């Protein structure tokens, strides 16, 4: 039985939401701090990795707890597995083709 089909206790949900909101506040602050911090060095790639890593934590909280994805049915996971596969393919092809210009291409 998925979480959304179990009996609901409104007070426990309010407590859960309060915790999630506090964590989201902290992670958002951490992202902003990472964006403006001088301690992460001047490398753009490292900074972006840290910031997006924190964003993934936020996304996990929303998808896992608010969307009940941690306790969903197998079919939903199957749909999402296909989505992730094609999403990675989409991003991968983009990155793969990044420097793939025809011979003689001039960049202005």
């Amino acid at each position, binding site marked *: 039985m998925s979480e959304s089909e179990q009996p609901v206790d*409104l007070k426990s949900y309010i407590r859960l939401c309060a915790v999630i909101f506090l964590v989201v506040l902290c992670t958002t602050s951490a992202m902003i701090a990472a964006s403006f911090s001088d301690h992460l060095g001047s490398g753009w790639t490292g900074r972006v990795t840290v910031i997006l890593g924190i964003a993934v934590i936020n996304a996990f909280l929303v998808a896992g707890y608010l969307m009940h994805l941690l306790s969903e049915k197998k079919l939903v996971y199957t749909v999402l597995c296909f989505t992730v596969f094609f999403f990675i393919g989409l991003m991968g092809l983009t*990155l793969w083709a990044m420097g793939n210009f025809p011979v003689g291409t001039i960049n202005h």
Partner: protein
Amino acid sequence: MEIPYTVKNRPDTGIYNAKLGVWLFLASEVMLFGGLFSAYVLLRVGAQPGHWPHGWLDVRFGTVNTILLALSAITTLLAWAACKVREFGKFKFFHGCTILLALTFLGIKSYEYHDKWIHYEIQLKDGTFADGHLEEQDDKQVVLHGRIVKDEKDLYDLRAQKDIQLGEVKIDRANIVKMQNYGPWHNTFTAIYFTLTGLHALHILGGTLVIFYLWGPGSKMYKTDPERFTNRIEVSGLFWHFVDLVWIFLFPVLYLT
């Protein structure tokens, strides 16, 4: 005619039809936004050094909107939970909060768009660039609240420049080579910014309309078929959480990196 599996789970899928439908729809939405995100990556990495804007967007507005959407995602979940335990008054309260938070988000986004719409970059005949917010204009001159820079590159990385002095800049129209606001046509950054956030804002608007319907006239169903109504709230909530998920990545990508 009764529509099957709006309340009970289908034996073969294990979930009710609307839930499977919304997950399939969200999968297609992931690909839609994924395509635009990959376009962003292509534009960002392909930009020549020093030609990608930094600090063009106000992080304070982005942060407030992040908090608003996170709160609205929580009130949506609580609205569903209130429906589930048959507390209709609390459902009305939580979903009312969701609508107000969504409208505030759209209000802030509109303000940001307006700010870009009245922000102009003007190329002058002497090779310099005037940049700032339009205060007034007529046939003879344009007045900006901004500054003049020698090189257009000085307008890209605003974070690196600590002391930017802004003031009133009066420009004769005869000295203008090109005058353009910071709309989607300005450069690739504004193009992808308006496309991504505009599409996201349309999703917010659509979601708000659905939630408003379920909060208002659509809530009549609660009296006749509360279980089915609760499922409708769950399905609309899943969409709303997805919209929040998209913003979770839009905010750092556009405002912070």
